[in-house]
């Protein structure tokens, strides 16, 4: 492997990591606020992709402008899911039961998507999807640059909401201690509902980028969920910045090993790194303890 190939793999890993961070952000946010492991995150990414697909093919709305519709639509879906399913879970066994509940939600969404769109693979197209810009001898695809830019913007926006607004303080208070938050006047139920709405809404952005970089059908969510879970666990459940760092680390490791050694060994090396990190830092790179300390 030449140095150029190695650098190319690192650049590819960083850019693709941004796309995965976009897809994982909602998952880690929902866990952070609700202690819920959202197994439906993969299918929600696919749903976001299908919404963009429907808007672009049937109404001629571009992928980026379409986010102005898909993000609020997914927000409402998140609110409905929180109200309809997540809120019903008892506090004591919330995390365990959430896996079953969100799996049911995933199957429900998958069934609806199959009925509406069929199972043939589709992919999102736009003039910039296949274009790239040459920088220092590398072709950098616009769609990955856009994905990375959106991931950074999203990270900054979520950070601003969490740490610079009253609502963000309410979220963090609910996250740290529900009873204490209740006592100081935080409407915990409403805070959680809106947080889940935001978590699902940001998935619309991840879905659009995913749909523009991969062909997908209603079953594509299953391939994603294990990777997304691995990212948020490494990053630290509940940490948006951790998800970004872990996604980039995961994809850089994956791409470098795939090019330098073999794609067959890439997942193994990543998971070996995950095990080592978790044995030293069980809460992940930026786990809940670190987040609360900020």
């Amino acid at each position: 492997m030449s140095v150029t190939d190695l650098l190319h793999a690192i650049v590819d890993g960083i850019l693709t990591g941004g796309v995965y961070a976009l897809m994982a952000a909602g998952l880690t946010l929902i866990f952070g606020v609700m202690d819920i492991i959202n197994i439906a995150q993969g299918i929600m990414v696919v749903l976001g992709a299908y919404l963009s697909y429907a808007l672009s093919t049937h109404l001629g709305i571009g992928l980026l402008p379409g986010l102005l519709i898909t993000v609020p639509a997914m927000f409402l879906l998140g609110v409905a899911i929180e109200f309809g399913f997540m809120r019903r879970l008892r506090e004591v066994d919330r995390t365990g039961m959430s896996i079953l509940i969100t799996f049911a939600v995933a199957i429900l969404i998958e069934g609806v998507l199959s009925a509406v769109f069929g199972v043939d693979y589709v992919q999102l197209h736009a003039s910039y999807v296949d274009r790239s810009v040459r920088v220092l001898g590398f072709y950098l695809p616009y769609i990955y640059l856009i994905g990375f830019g959106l991931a950074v913007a999203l990270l900054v926006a979520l950070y601003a909401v969490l740490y610079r607004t009253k609502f963000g303080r309410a979220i963090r208070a609910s996250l740290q201690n529900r009873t204490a938050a209740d006592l100081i006047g935080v409407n915990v139920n409403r805070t959680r509902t809106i947080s889940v709405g935001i978590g699902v809404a940001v998935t619309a952005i991840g879905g659009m980028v995913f749909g523009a970089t991969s062909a997908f059908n209603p079953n594509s969510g299953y391939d994603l969920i294990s990777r997304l879970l691995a990212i948020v666990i490494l990053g630290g459940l509940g940490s948006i910045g951790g998800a970004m760092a872990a996604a980039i680390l995961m994809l850089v490791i994956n791409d470098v090993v795939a090019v330098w050694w073999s794609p067959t060994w890439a997942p193994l090396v990543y998971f070996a790194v995950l095990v080592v990190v978790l044995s030293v830092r069980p809460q992940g790179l930026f786990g809940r303890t670190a987040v609360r300390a900020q």
Partner: protein
Amino acid sequence: MNIFRRCAVTALAIAMVSLLAACGSSSKGGAGSGSGPITIGASLSLSGDFSADGQAFERGYELWVHDQNAKGGLLGHKIRLEVLSDASSPAQVVSNYERLIGSDHVALVFGPFSTLLTLPSARVAARYGYAFVEGAGGGPAVFGTGLHNVFDVSVPIKDNLVTFAQWVASMPAAQRPKTAAYATTNDPFTQPQIPVAQHILQAAGVKTLSSTVFPSEVTDFTPIASKLASADADIVVLGSVDVPTVSSFVHAFIQQHYNPKIFIATAGPDQGAAFVKAVGAGNENGIFVPNGWYPGFQKADSLQMVKEYIARYGGSASDINADVAEAYSVGQVLAQAVEATHSFDQSKIISYLHSGVTLNSVQGPVKFDALGENTAQKTLTFQWQNGALVQTLPTNTPGSKPPLYPKPNWVG
């Protein structure tokens, strides 16, 4: 006396229950007696990784059942199709055939989609002595197990790329591509095909620049595609099982400004309009795929099937997935065996299919060797040319059009 009476009553009750159970199970699906319907069972991947292929297979089976019933069914019995979904899981496919054969006692079974799922399910069928006619389990792994009951109506896949490789090797030296790059998923359908093609091409002086195997769980193909692009080989041979894999490579190649002179993928481009939608209209132009059938195949029953498919499911001929023809052929071959033996007896059907007889299918002739591979057909190679998948190789075969070489540039 009372004890004897009780014992006799109990024994009689057990016997009656057993009889009723036996009647119940045979009436559920077996051939039974009289002219009642028979059930043919199949497990298909209606969800999961192979869902697009599984649903195309279901349409093929349904279409054949409809046509056969219109002709009076099988030996005077109307046919009912029982399809169970295996979610593309090798574990579930085993449970499904256990249920279809062991519990539902279906009269006949059709195979699932893919070599991966055919292998474990053929073993279940063998245990019950059932003939296992299938259309998408052509990997060597299936035929290397010594099973006597498995019959693949399609072309054996290990030689899928031979026609293509021989065409490249036959080019005049000045025109012949000089280098090739190979990448394949670690699937029993794709992996055996690559070394065969690589051997022929290397013998013809086509140098291998890169050869990569990647796991089927890969969701990000960027590094593999980038590596192929940076190798800048004249030929790319991609061992793929589905549309997303090929589509990811196509888009990555476009982004990397890399357009090989020849691009062939083992599966994906055969999925009609779904493939074109994924890669973007125009980008499919010049891509090759080996197969045994395409919608424009000039054979009377194939053309009739295409017509019926469009009438039943809509769309156009180019929308039809080759899986439909593979599934339809399974029904045709099994029906010929049942009619020739005048029975649903599995051992008679198996013996007949092994007898060396040549049967007919929409994909062409079918003749099984001792392993159950179809030896009567040769692989054809198709190429997308101006929005249509056309037969190109072998060049001297009736119906073949001249291949586009070098591949036209991507439209982006």
